[in-house]
């Protein structure tokens, strides 16, 4: 059991980060704080992949003449890294859209507090 916990230490950190991220997204009322939570959440998943790709005693996945290409155990699995590259791009795009939305919301409502925004929305709905 102890081995299991220690042996997976990277994952525990990932899950702690994930929990922090989710907490930020769900509990915080400020929209920008929500975005910070979202970012942490995304990063935690990226770390998860990267941690999963790790091998003890292996090196970066660039063909090194000294190591040869016969034994894949000498190189870290490159696929998760490339996948995460895409995931990072997706994350950046999402963040860009989100920030644009936040700016628009702030310009229209002069507030970034979610509860107040929702109240305001319902009020406007009723007056319509």
């Amino acid at each position, binding site marked *: 059991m102890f081995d299991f916990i220690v042996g997976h230490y990277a994952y525990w950190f990932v899950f702690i980060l994930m929990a922090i991220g989710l907490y930020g997204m769900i509990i915080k009322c400020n929209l920008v704080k929500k975005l910070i939570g*979202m970012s942490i*959440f995304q990063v935690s998943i990226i770390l*998860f*992949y990267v941690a*999963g790709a790790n091998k003890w005693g292996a090196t970066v996945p660039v063909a090194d003449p000294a190591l040869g290409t016969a034994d894949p155990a000498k190189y870290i699995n490159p696929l998760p890294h490339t996948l995460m590259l895409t995931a990072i791009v*997706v994350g950046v795009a999402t963040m860009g*859209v*989100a920030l644009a939305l936040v700016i628009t919301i702030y310009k229209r409502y002069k507030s970034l507090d979610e509860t107040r925004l929702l109240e305001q*929305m319902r009020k406007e709905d009723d007056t319509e």
Partner: protein
Amino acid sequence: MILSNSPALVPLSLLLAAIVIPMAAFRRRWLAYPLALCASAFATGISVVNIIRVLTEGTIHYHFGGWIPPIGIEYVLDPLSSFVTLVVNAVSLMVLVHARRSVAAELPDKSMPFYAVVMLMLTGFNGIILTGDFFNLYVFLEISSLALYGMIAVGGRKSPIAAFRYLIMGTVGGSFYLLGVGFIYMTTGSLNMADVARIAPSLHQQPALVAALGLMITGLGIKMAIFPLHGWLPDAYTYAPSASSALIAPVGAKVGVYAIIRVIFYVFGVEFVRNSLPITEILAWLGAIAIIYGSIQAIAQKEMKRMLAYSSVAQIGYIGLGIGLANPYGIIGAVLHVMNHALMKACLFLVAGNYRLKLGHSTIPRLDHRVRRRMPWTTAAFTIGALSMVGVPPTVGFFSKWYLALGTIQNGRWLFLTALLVSSLLNAVYFFRILEKVYMKPLEGEAADDGSVSLDEAPASMLVPTLVLGIALLLLGLLNAVIVTGIISRIVPPGM
């Protein structure tokens, strides 16, 4: 050449349009719409070719870059994916035909980016449906979601808030899915769906694989807006511009449904799912609750688009129920309902769009008999759509309900059957409420100004797609057996 690349051509042509539109419309704005329409029509045409090819040649695998899976990314054209792409593209084409006037009216200076984003969204949808690779699916899922956020946010004053809430939820959903994919990759070492499907049974319920299943279904469930995860949907549909909601509501949630069907029935297989987590059971229950909850909420709404949004929650519940039953009739019902709901919702949202254009609003208490006098054909299309929602034969709505009912009976789930049937009544309540208003004279006290209201129908470009969808509801209802035996029964996974 075109034929051999036909699976890839559907998303690629749309992607090309998404790129070309901003460039071409840099100087000539009017080019945006024809380009979008051409791309969508082309994609629809290719989808038809695809479905014919699948029906004659069997499943088609398309390997990107010539790399053989599991190394390369492949597109898989089987009856399910070819059917759903056809539905998505055909419905979107209809909505796009309709969109020109409503976009011109509601988003006069944003039409170019709007069409580019629509193309991007459709690229994403088609990619999700066609891909045979888990990670590729994630990328397309996020492409389509980003496009959706944009399409929602261009609406009125409140739309950015709705879009933001959707963005948060959608990102959580996407991330859960990605996490699930990570677990799959770590246990099986593959991202190819067929490959995983081959490996998974030999792993005997490994906890990591079960966790992957749970995470993926949760993530996709958010995108699909199954009951407790539907929070983003009503606001998003209501505050988006008419053209956006008409595009998003019919096809948006469907791709989530599609991905869930794919994951549960084609990758993990019913056996695995049943033995690991009670996911089908949970989906069925959530579906049943969504059916009732969505219908009741819909009754309480005053805005037509919001009402339709809540009814979408209920309709997605039908599909969830069908998937959760996990028997052939359930699947047939669910897949038929995917088509059916796409057509109905498109039809009804187009009607709402027509009302918005001509009346300036789509608020239910403000509708009255003058609406029908002004716009008889639009109202007729609304009536057909409403009848299909209620499930009156011979519309498609009746038949998808029929198959779902057979599915509940096959599993002996009487409670679900009751939910299914009761929801028809609730649908009747909120649709006949409107029909009563538009077909009847105002009560005494108000002046009967029949004479002053003249025919003022929506323009042909808006009316024709609305009517086409309405007629399709009737025709496809009568011809549903052809679709069911020809296509959908082949979708039912083997061993069920």
